[in-house]
């Protein structure tokens, strides 16, 4: 549930953000503070996969945007997570 790539995709789902903004956003909605190395490791992987891309002109505080394929991947991952959560909760009730 704390996969950094999933957290970054979730953060970018509602709009473009640069590294520091993503870090703060993730801390707000997930309660997880990603380290700088972990965050940029995730950004590198996501960009390699084509799920995010740099938005706007090149700058020191480079914003990133989620791509359509990234959005599709996020939807699939969240659906899987939702299924896991639903199943887990149901089984907890019956236990």
């Amino acid at each position, binding site marked *: 549930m704390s996969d950094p790539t999933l957290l970054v995709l979730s953060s970018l789902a509602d709009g473009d953000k*640069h*590294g*520091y903004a993503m*870090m703060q956003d993730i801390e707000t909605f997930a309660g997880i503070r990603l*380290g*700088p*190395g*972990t*965050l*940029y*490791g995730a*950004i*590198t992987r996501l*960009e*390699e996969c*084509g799920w995010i*891309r*740099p938005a706007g002109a090149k*700058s*020191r*505080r*480079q914003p990133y945007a989620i791509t359509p394929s990234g959005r599709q991947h996020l939807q699939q991952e969240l659906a899987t997570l939702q299924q896991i959560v639903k199943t887990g909760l149901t089984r907890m009730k019956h236990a």
Partner: protein
Amino acid sequence: MKPVARALIRLYPANWRARYGDEFAALLEDSPPTRSGMFDLLKGAIKMQLKIPAFPKLALILSAAGLLAGLGVSFVVTPRYISQAVLTFDATSTPKDSRRNLNEYFVQLENEILSRTSLSAIIQDPRLDLYRRERVRTPLEDVIEKMRTEDIQIGTDTPGSVNRESLAVQISFGYSDLIKAQQTVQALITKFQDLNLTRQRVAAYTKRGRTYDDVDRMEQRIAVLEKRLGIQSPAPGPLDFPAAPVEGTNLDVLYPPGLPVYPVYPNRYTFMLTGFGAGFISALVVAVFRRRLPPIPFPAQTA
């Protein structure tokens, strides 16, 4: 930005830095990393280095070389074997009024055994012949001091406690030769036993109001009387004292000195692990300072 963080960024591959370096530095300015953040930076750098196709191979070769070098060094380094034994001092057979403080008694014996004369005799005993090389290079005083402070360990189970009836004492000796280590502990035990016996005898005679001088005087008088009466004196034999049961502290060997099969130093696994780690770090350093890095297919560059 903190100098440490700046140094850690340099651990990232040059191509990665060319692509993300500026924005990464900006992030670290906005959010200066804590101690755990520094560790995260280092972890990220290693992960990025591992993404370079040539790095895993380089790391594998250097780490394996380091591991083998560590193993090799562990065979060259002088080993250290430790032999241990446990003695027990027991004062239960002594009447309570004459029972002395065992710890104090033990310290007296220990001081005598660790004295210069005693240790010098052990070192120069031809059967042991300890520290032969050291004695060539350094004065005997220094060798004795090293033996006393570094190689011999004598400790009680509960130091400082008083009014006890028994006391366990552990004796250990560390040396490069396993057999000599064992024999030296045995020599120390023998010294403890001899000294304890001597103390018991002295105590016994003192209690009976006799001294060695008294015994000498009596023997002289007997010799004079035998001469006057024309009795042939029997050949002098050892005095059978103490004839009466000896009261005092009994010393028993609970665990005799063991023969240490494995050395405590060098630990081969530690040496191998250190060599492996050094090899991996070397690979990391080589990767960082290598002039020509293979291209990394980061999307921004390929696009």
